[in-house]
């Protein structure tokens, strides 16, 4: 089994609410990210995918549960220090994550200086050029300000800044969503190339299912703060086990009028209002076309229904009983298979 770069176990994140009980953004999420592989996270707005990204890079602390980076737990006592550098976050909108008053060289140089990664001005300069080279920007971009960059160029600078501390993993939160369609491919190609060259791990958070499928090895589908399905990308999006994943995959309009002409009617059902407390039993039951009595009574566990392919659905679990998988104890995803294995 490949080395685990990130391991999250039963992570819960609650935010206090002025009225009533706290808002539970994450309700017990477990996942692993292997070295040099990509974990894609999909789900609707409000499912907790961005909160999870912020926890993984240490911008926020979980209410309970454990996050380990490269086998070492991240908690208050060990401090984040050197460990913190290992996972870096790239945001959706590069223009709001880059300081408008800093040139590209200053933005990158600041990171290098803060982390004492270079000695002296000459070394800093050559390292800035090197970082720009990694993201395929010419050295002349060093003196530019963010407003002098296009969206694609700015996102490449943001990626270079994340790479400045030589991390093991990047958490990419909707890295192409704010970009024009014609420059998305360029950023995605850059990310796959960097992964091959540097052996990086990615957590790729996006609502663009086609892009997630393209870049991810393993995909996690989140619904209301929980992982409802996970597994190798072909399995999760090609033969989904959870009705929610199926509804998501069905809802994506494809750039092909022939396919669209034979499209099925929507199965997604009504979304809950943001922050609403899910009902008893399976959180998806009000929207689910397959809902049964048991779905209203019991919360389904995330079970390995096919090798390496997990889903939290009573109906799928019963229907696949003829081809039994090994039930994994809820909350441990250590058995998440290597894709293609």
């Amino acid at each position, binding site marked *: 089994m490949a080395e685990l770069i990130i391991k999250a176990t039963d992570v819960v994140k609650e935010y206090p609410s002025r009225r009533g009980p706290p808002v539970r953004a994450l309700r017990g999420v477990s996942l692993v990210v292997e070295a040099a592989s990509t974990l894609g996270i999909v789900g*609707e*707005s409000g499912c907790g995918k961005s909160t999870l990204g912020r926890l993984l890079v240490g911008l926020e602390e979980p209410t309970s549960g454990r996050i380990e980076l490269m086998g070492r737990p991240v908690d208050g006592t060990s401090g984040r220090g050197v460990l913190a550098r290992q996972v870096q976050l790239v945001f959706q909108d590069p223009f709001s994550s880059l300081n408008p008053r800093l040139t590209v060289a200053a933005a990158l140089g600041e990171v290098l200086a803060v982390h004492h990664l270079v000695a002296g001005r000459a070394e800093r300069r050559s390292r800035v050029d090197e970082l720009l080279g990694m993201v395929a920007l010419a050295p002349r971009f060093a003196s530019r300000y963010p407003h002098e960059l*296009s*969206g*694609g*160029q700015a996102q490449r600078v943001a990626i270079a800044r994340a790479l400045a501390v030589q991390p093991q993993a990047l958490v990419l939160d909707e890295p192409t969503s704010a970009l*024009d*369609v*014609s*420059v*998305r*491919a*360029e950023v*995605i*190609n850059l990310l*796959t190339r960097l992964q091959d060259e540097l052996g990086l791990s990615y957590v790729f958070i996006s*609502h663009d*299912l*086609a*892009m997630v*499928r*393209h*870049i991810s090895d393993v995909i996690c589908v989140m619904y209301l703060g929980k992982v409802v399905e996970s597994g190798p*990308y072909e399995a999760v999006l090609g033969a989904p086990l959870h009705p929610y994943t199926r*509804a*998501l995959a*069905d*809802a*994506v*309009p*494809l*750039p*092909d*009028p*022939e*396919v*669209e002409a034979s*499209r099925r*009617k*929507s199965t*997604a059902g*009504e*979304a*809950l*209002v*943001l922050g609403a407390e899910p009902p008893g039993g399976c959180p998806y039951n009000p929207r689910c076309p397959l809902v049964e009595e048991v779905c209203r009574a019991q919360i389904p566990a995330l079970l390995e229904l096919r090798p390496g392919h997990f889903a939290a659905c009573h109906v799928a679990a019963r229907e696949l009983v003829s081809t039994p998988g090994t039930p994994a104890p809820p909350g441990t995803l250590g058995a998440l298979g290597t894709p293609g294995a």
Partner: protein
Amino acid sequence: MSQPSGAREPLLTLRGVRVGTSEHRHDHEIVRGVDLEVFPGEKLGIVGESGSGKSLTVLSVLRLLPDPPVRLLGGTITFAGQDLSRLDDKRLQKVRGAEIAMVYQDPMTSLNPLLRVRTQIVETLRAHGVDRRTALARCQEVLGQVGLPGAERVGRAFPHELSGGMVQRVMIAIALSVSPRLLIADEPTTALDVTIQQQILELVEDVQARTGMAVVWVTHDLGVVARIVDNVVVMYAGRVVERAPARRLFARPSHPYTLALLGSLPHAGTGHRQPLTQIGGTPPDPSRLERGCPFRPRCPFRVDRCAEEEPPLLDRGLGSFAACWRAPDEWQS
């Protein structure tokens, strides 16, 4: 000229529409001469990236441009036989909503946060001369029509109490409440989840099939275009670069930009993690264009002529028109 609906008169006609800013008696054009037609009952998609001028083009129809600084610099806009650019504000107000309704990208900024949903729908209907009692009844009816469960409860709610998808459906309910002949939707589902987007697309298709209203759908999402429209207009740098029936456009694009856009999306034929087709370069600033075809710097098929003259829309057969000097079978780098 392609007439998808036979010999019928177009409902909306734009001729040579130019939009931009004026400074020191010098015009900076962002929309540089757009011609288009929308026939009764037609579903037309306008596709383009940011800066292509697609939103300004549709905003100019109802004189909704952010003026100043952006205004209509030239061209004519004819709707059902009347020249909209010559109407005074009072008469144009009668066309807005009643004849042509608009829905915008961010539903949360389109509603007044201080007023209940019901109040805003009733207000719209009253502005179009419906009496109060009828307006209240009609309000429940339209909320039900757009698939909002518990129309009574939604009507009493304030916008912040509803999700983005619900608010967008309220906006569509308002737009449809006065039975317009044309709905202009400017990226109405871009800020929404795919599942909600799907419901909104189904809703608009439903209403369209029932009432025969025409729809202009502005988007950057080629999937949405494939999903709902009959005909597509592709805009680049303030001009229409391709116009074609949807099936024809996706099967055989006639402009290199359309080809590149389609190629840059991951699709069934793309290998996992294999490089996607990059377009290279960035869309130009329409107010700072050089001579020749604006796509030339990014075009793999450019020839000398492309640097000299900007191509007009040329007939490429089967209803397809493209602003490219070269026919698709001549494309080679």
